[in-house]
């Protein structure tokens, strides 16, 4: 299983599948059962090289913030005072609380919250979900924090959420439009930046549309088009206007593969509402010059193949699904769907879906167990899923319960793989909700700000302390995660914790007598990995392919035999399914809808700066926040345009207050030209750290974000109005 380099040092491969956006090979040096160093893939190209987060593995595994033992709270909630207890006592207590709430108030009063965490097949949230589902069920959440708008749009427009090409296909593009997409920081699939660099070198034109001059823009862009946050759909629809009025659209492609273009055209030309969506109309909204919009439309329509890489950040806005639906519509109008070098423009980060049509899925070794309280088929959270709650509304639901129109009064909660307090909008409301709950259990690896609110803490181990299988992102491959060291302290892998809890809950059929290895071998078989032991030894298995995978190639090459998976069998620019939802501001064709907390919201008088909360290069959401090697590289700062800084008498390095009605955070400012005037960027994921007055001092973006969602369920992390002022210390 390992190469011997010295008598006692071994090098063992594993796959870093944290939530950064890639899945990368690590070769971990271990001596006397301690990790000493980490290398990455040095085999044949394309090597799967890890980023800075993966390379900080040692600090992650041995972090002082690791939770090593089951804990019981002894101080006040939030104070972080705990004492060590046994696994027996901890799981007994969680099971007791679950049963108590279920018996007294019903299963719906027990709230179970999760997020993905590290992306594996066996040791995932599914273990805990299974234990609680078999015990009687629970209330949970719906919607995907990162990319709900994109998922909704691809599901209802293409009939699937598997819409990405392998990244190597970028080398086949003549034009790449990176729309709100910053893989330099968000990885976006292992090797994405490498392919972009090569594409640029071979002469592919790259255009970046983004309010921020990101590292991706700085490195790859031939042209940067800054645009106000939340106005993406307006610009895209104006591009459609240019294509239509100049007859640049690929009408044959539209006629063959899509439905609803005529209705969209009526809207674009103003026949529906009297407003032609001209480039001048869009200029007023987006602050992008009309001529720039015209030129981009012409280039996208004529340079073929062109890859429109739809970042998911623009979808995290008040009506984020409209941006995604509009982008897909343009990809269709330009005939760039299903062809090498093109792109379906659905969403440029597929995470657990990998950008490859894998026969298995995240959590495949222990597939989701149906929750007895479900009223609808949970179709991977595309839509409202009664009696579950949209993740942004969970705090509100805890606070208001049935009186607020929610399905239950929520008494107790179990959080798994979720730094809920830091990761969801409106931290100050979440805090109130946490204080209201009668009991909170949390399964975590690290002492996060959320864990400080737990009554019982269950420590989980990291991916180097157990075996698992990860799915590649950006290309078709699988990674084997070897157990490199024993679990630290008494931390345990998820599936072990699931079993323990199931036992305490009185669940008898948790594991059907299948061992972890049985389950992993089953996954390998489903994945058609020919030699399990070789896979384990090498740490990687690449799916053999002659050319990069291109989504929808079959549908385009032979539409008769390969209809799209939509009701009509075509790309649904007009969606009857969406129309039938009958929701306000969720039109059946893509439209621009003026966002709340956008530049024209009356609230902008008080809070004139549009805040975006970009993903940060040294974190993966809230993961990796406390690794010292990473922290020292890039400080958490607010970036503010020089003109906005000057108007506020703010200079580079000042401490500033960033605030709105929901909260305030204090942090240093970086005054820069790398962001549009009127926009500020506060990287998401910093760990909430209140001072004595309860004001956050870490730059935790979600003290400012709104606990609301779009009609389709998009999270509004980038629809935030704030004011910024210099901190005056008295």
């Amino acid at each position, binding site marked *: 299983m390992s190469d011997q380099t010295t008598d006692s040092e071994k090098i063992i491969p594993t796959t870093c599948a944290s939530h950064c956006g890639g899945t990368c090979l690590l070769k971990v040096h271990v001596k006397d059962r301690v990790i000493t160093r*980490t290398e990455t893939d*040095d085999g044949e190209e394309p090597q799967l*090289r890890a980023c*800075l987060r993966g390379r900080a593995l040692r600090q992650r595994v041995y972090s002082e913030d690791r939770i090593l033992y089951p804990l019981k709270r002894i101080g006040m909630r939030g104070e972080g005072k705990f004492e060590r207890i046994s696994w027996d006592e901890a799981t007994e207590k969680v099971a007791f609380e679950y049963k108590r709430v279920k018996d007294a108030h019903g299963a719906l009063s027990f709230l179970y919250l999760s997020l993905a965490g590290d992306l594996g097949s066996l040791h995932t949230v599914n273990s805990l979900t299974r234990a609680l589902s078999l015990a009687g069920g629970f209330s949970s959440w719906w919607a995907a924090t990162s990319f709900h708008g994109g998922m909704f749009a691809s599901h209802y427009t293409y009939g699937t959420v598997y819409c990405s090409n392998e990244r190597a296909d970028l080398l086949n593009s003549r034009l790449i439009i990176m729309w709100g997409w910053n893989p*330099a920081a968000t990885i976006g699939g292992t090797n994405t930046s490498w392919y972009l660099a090569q594409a640029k070198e071979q002469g592919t034109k790259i255009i970046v549309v983004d309010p921020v001059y990101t*590292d991706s823009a700085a490195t790859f862009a031939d042209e940067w088009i800054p645009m106000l946050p939340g106005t993406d759909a307006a610009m895209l629809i104006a591009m459609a206007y240019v294509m239509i009025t100049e007859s640049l659209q690929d009408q044959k492609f539209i006629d063959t593969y899509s439905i609803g273009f005529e209705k969209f055209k009526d809207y674009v030309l103003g026949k529906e509402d009297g407003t032609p969506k001209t480039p001048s109309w869009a200029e007023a909204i987006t602050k992008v010059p009309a001529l720039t919009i015209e030129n981009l439309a012409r280039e996208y329509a004529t340079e073929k193949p062109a890859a429109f890489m739809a970042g998911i950040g623009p979808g995290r806005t008040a009506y984020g699904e409209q941006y995604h639906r509009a982008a897909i519509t343009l990809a269709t109008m330009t005939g760039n769907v299903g062809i090498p070098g093109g792109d379906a423009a659905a969403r440029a980060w597929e995470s657990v879906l990998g950008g490859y049509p894998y026969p298995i899925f995240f959590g495949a070794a222990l597939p989701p167990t149906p929750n007895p309280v479900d009223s609808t088929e949970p179709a991977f959270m595309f839509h409202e899923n009664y009696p579950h709650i949209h993740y942004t509304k969970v705090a509100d639901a805890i606070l208001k319960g049935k009186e607020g129109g929610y399905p239950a009064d929520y008494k107790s909660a179990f959080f798994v793989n979720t730094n809920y307090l830091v990761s969801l909008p409106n931290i100050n409301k979440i805090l109130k909700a946490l204080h209201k709950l009668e009991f909170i259990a949390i399964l975590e690896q690290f002492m996060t700000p959320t864990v400080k609110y737990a009554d019982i803490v269950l420590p989980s181990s990291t991916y180097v302390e157990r075996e698992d299988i990860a799915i590649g992102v950006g290309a078709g491959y699988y990674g084997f995660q070897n157990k490199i060291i024993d679990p630290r302290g008494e931390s345990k892998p998820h599936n072990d914790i699931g079993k323990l809890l199931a036992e305490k809950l009185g669940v008898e059929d948790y594991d059907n007598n299948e061992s972890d290895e049985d389950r992993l071998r089953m996954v390998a078989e489903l994945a058609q990995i020919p030699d399990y032991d070789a896979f384990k030894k090498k740490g990687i298995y690449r799916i053999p392919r002659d050319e990069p995978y291109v989504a929808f190639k079959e549908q385009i090459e032979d539409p008769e035999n390969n209809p799209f998976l939509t009701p009509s069998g075509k790309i649904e620019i007009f969606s009857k399914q969406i129309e039938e939802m009958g929701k306000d501001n969720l039109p059946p064709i893509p439209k621009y809808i003026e966002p709340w907390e956008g530049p024209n919201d009356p609230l902008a008088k008080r809070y004139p700066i549009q805040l975006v909360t970009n993903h940060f290069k040294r974190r993966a959401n809230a993961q990796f926040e406390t690794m010292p090697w990473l922290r*020292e590289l890039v400080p958490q700062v607010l970036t503010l345009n020089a*003109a906005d800084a000057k108007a506020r008498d703010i200079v580079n390095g000042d401490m500033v207050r960033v605030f709105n009605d929901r909260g305030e955070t204090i942090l240093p400012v970086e005054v*820069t030209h790398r962001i549009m005037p009127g926009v500020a960027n506060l990287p998401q994921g910093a760990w909430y750290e209140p001072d004595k007055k309860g004001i956050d001092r870490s730059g935790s973006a979600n003290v400012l974000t709104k606990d609301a969602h779009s009609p389709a369920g998009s999270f509004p992390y980038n629809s935030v109005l704030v004011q910024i002022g210099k901190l005056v210390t008295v």
Partner: protein
Amino acid sequence: MQLGFYFDQTRCVGCYTCCVACKDWHDISPGPVHWRKVTCIEKGEFPTLFVAYLSTSCHHCETPACAKACPVEAIEKREADGIVLVNQETCVGSEVCGGLCKEACPYDAPQYGDEENAKMQKCDLCLERWSEGKKPICVESCPTRAMDAGLFDELKTKYGEAIEAAGHNYFTEVAPYIILKPKVSPFDI
């Protein structure tokens, strides 16, 4: 024989992976010691900008200023491969000599930890890795393959003769062994 580095500034996204890989491999604590550094160069005003990154370490110069400045000859330029190495046993420490090598180096390559009278340390071009046929850890870490290392003459043949880039000047008096592919700023044309 002379080993050296190559850095493709047009490919560097400023991700700092090289820095973390270096600290991990050489077991360097978080703090003031950075054998490898990434710096950002920004020019222009919104919306006409130039932004470049520069990843550098010790350049294992032909005439290392650090070695010249060292009062106790603790810094050696090796005949065999041109690697500039510091002998920490000989080094008298920053407080005793005042950090003369760090002061002399135009590239800020010599580093001191925050311990008392810290001995100088710096990039050793991953000396031990060459013997195993491996390139320096930074080179092998770079996600965009923006770096290389090898025999300087071979690097020149492969990558050209550019010796300057945004944020990096060539100083003849020390003659650093790094080839670069510079990112050209429109403001400098």
